[in-house]
């Protein structure tokens, strides 16, 4: 079985030694100590493990690490620029869009992916693209508000 020795994570080349069939989530969490991505179900149904592959949301628990060895991987830990939070991280804080917050990193990564492809999403776009992320505490309305706020802020910042 092929062994993966390098991963491009959060803009840095990281050395690993992983079986190409292992799940990306396990490699991120256990090999690289990036525990911001969470295990929730292991079958791509809850979104807690969401990361970006080349800027697009992917469930890392069902992604084999061998398939992303040459791709840009972004996790929640790589989103802020120094002390400056990503607009979505800031919007989640501003809207208080969390309770236990175990889903939060996956929610933010899914939302980053949405705004990358659609900077001005309608509510229905947001609901569609977030449907695969579960918040068991029930903060969905605040998450929608946070995504709308981040979209507005990004637009403002871009002009």
């Amino acid at each position, binding site marked *: 079985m092929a062994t993966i020795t390098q991963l491009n994570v959060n803009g840095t080349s990281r050395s690993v030694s992983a079986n190409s069939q292992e799940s990306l989530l396990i490699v991120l969490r256990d090999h690289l100590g990036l525990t911001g991505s969470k295990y929730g179900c292991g079958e791509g149904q809850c979104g807690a493990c969401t990361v970006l592959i080349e800027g697009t949301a992917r469930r890392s628990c069902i992604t084999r690490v061998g398939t992303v060895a040459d791709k840009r991987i972004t996790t929640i830990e790589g989103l802020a620029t120094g002390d400056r939070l990503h607009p979505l991280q800031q919007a989640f804080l501003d809207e208080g869009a969390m309770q236990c917050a175990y889903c939060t990193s996956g929610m*933010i990564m899914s939302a980053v992916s949405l705004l990358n492809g659609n900077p001005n999403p309608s509510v229905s776009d947001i609901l569609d693209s977030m449907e695969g992320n579960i918040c*068991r505490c029930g903060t969905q309305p605040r998450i929608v508000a946070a995504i709308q706020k981040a979209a507005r802020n990004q637009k403002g910042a871009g002009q």
Partner: protein
Amino acid sequence: MTEKLHFDFPIERERYELQEAPSYRFETDRREFFRYLGAGILIVCAAKATRAGQESGGGRRPSGEALPQEISAWLHVGDDGGVTVFTGKVEVGQNIRTSLSQAVAEELHVSVAKIQIVMGDTQLTPYDRGTFGSLSTPVMNLQLRRAASAARDVLINLAATQWQADRTRLVAADGRVTDPTTKKSVEYAALVKGQQLTESLPAVDPLAPAAEWTVAGQSLPKVDGRDFVTGKHQYPSDQKIADMLYGKIVRPNAFGATLISVDTRAAEQIPGVTVVHDGNFVGVAGPSETISQTAAATIRAEWKSDRQPSSKELFEYLKKNVLPRDPDDTPPQIVGAVETALVAADHRLQQTYTVAYIAHAPLEPRAALAQWNGDRLKVWTGTQRPFGVRSELASTFHIPEDHVRVLMPDMGSGYGGKHTGETAIEAARLARAANRPVKLTWTREEEFSWAYFRPAGVIEITSGMRKDGSVTAWEFHNYNSGEAGIRTYYDIPNQKIEFHPTKSPLRQGSYRGLAATANHFARETHMDELAHVAGMDPLEFRLRNLQDERLKAVFTAAAQKFNWGRAKTGAGQGFGIAGGCDKGGYFATCAEVSADRQSGDVKVVRVVTAFECGAIVNPDGLRNQVMGANIMGLGGALFEAIEFEDGRILNGRFSKYRLPRFSDVPEIEVVLLDRKDLPSAGAGESPIEGIAPAIGNAIFNASGVRLRSMPLVPDGLKSA
């Protein structure tokens, strides 16, 4: 039946709420505190309203005396100006870390940023029964306010002595004591330098009334929110220490199964893997999650189990398997003469309601990291009862409780589902065999099968009513689901209310709101049916039979915001209302649904919940709780149900067990009634209890179909 604590509402007994007494009393030496914390002021709170304090007229015990035997919390003001609070309560997403910080900041007059709260560490925090029953706010918030208030008094006294000034004119604000007359001012940090003062708290202390709060009562954001949006926060399942192995358990193929034979030879051949076979326990510990999974998969185990009932026959099973009541169970509650009143009534109604088992499904499954040092054990684990888990570990491994330290990092929710210590025990068993620390994180499938469920139940109601809509007779029988919220708050002169324990096919236990959800569902659905029989508006009917002013207030507030009584604007539209009170919280929920009888689709369009729990500590946190409770409750109301057969869970994964998702969430409005004249009650649970009957009643209003089982529409409305 009820236990009157030192706040103003009764706590109903709940047989499924695990709350064992402490197996030993925490004793400590004040010198130990200062060795650990450094110089400063230490305030120790007694767990109960101290009798000594009351007998001596409320005066404080002098410093240096022995500390109370039962301590509930303590607070330390250090010579760096930092305030450290120790409580055995835990943060599970209910935002108690933030609201307790506010309570301390309010009374001590320091900024929230100066306050650190150490929670749920059995070595550092005093004994606590657990975080459940919506008790953290009414009990711990009050305790910490008292402790902070006492600390402030000590600081003012220190300054008064230093300045030879009259203490009554000194003012504490912003972490300083100031004398407005002389303009002298000193920071708390400077005042406590070199001091080792201890105060043990009496029962009563003058506290700032809620109407004068400046920090408490405000919408403070989550104190460590930044750690959560950056992925920095370390949950129980994120813990890692040097040399750690990863555990994996080989599970039986059915509940209650016995191991007949096991072949672990292949697993033992894998380098770095330790295999444990001890009675019914079979597990492995290996150098990576992947290797442990592989090793566990090679183990061949043969199990034997007895035939067990299935979810299809659940409700007949419960009715047929009634058990004698425990001495602690609530006896039947009888008021007036229900049989006579039923005979005399103009209308009689008899109906049966059922509630399925449901799963907590906390997004973070149970996890534990266990580390042995000789016969001393340290475990990081996600639990609502760190001290309960400590007892379980001590008893399982035959070691004294003071050899066990349980730490509870703020976890990925619990909802009543993480009271027990299986994961901690399993990790510790593997760690002992491997002679290395072991982390075990349950898979989602394990979490669904090997934790426990909200009790299922059957509720039978027989009622009698006069022509004018006055309910005169109320007979209520609850089979298995439990006692919380069983009493009716309607003003009914003749009542018989009885809880019947039964055998349970599945392991059952605490859950957010617990039996109060089932009892409110049955009661509020039945009241709606009676309103229909009487030909009255459901709200008007309830108010007619209600005396309780707090409950009337939330019904009225919800109805007003919802615009109750307005005409329907479309086919399939329906409106429903339900309300009640539990654990000190008063709630009323209005729901609008759209029900399509052709397709069977039911969509909850809009929900308004009015909620009142006394003086509000953090309005934004409370809104978040009330909204979240409604959304979580939506799942149990509409579609959540555990399916099982012969000792196995059939739908124990997210692709098979439907949880509320973004598209299920209606427009939700929360109306908060702030009663600054009443003590603060907890709010994590009761707002979940109104949504199911409100939706069921709205479906009836929309379609004429009366649904009496939770979940209401697991397969759509057509099958009903």
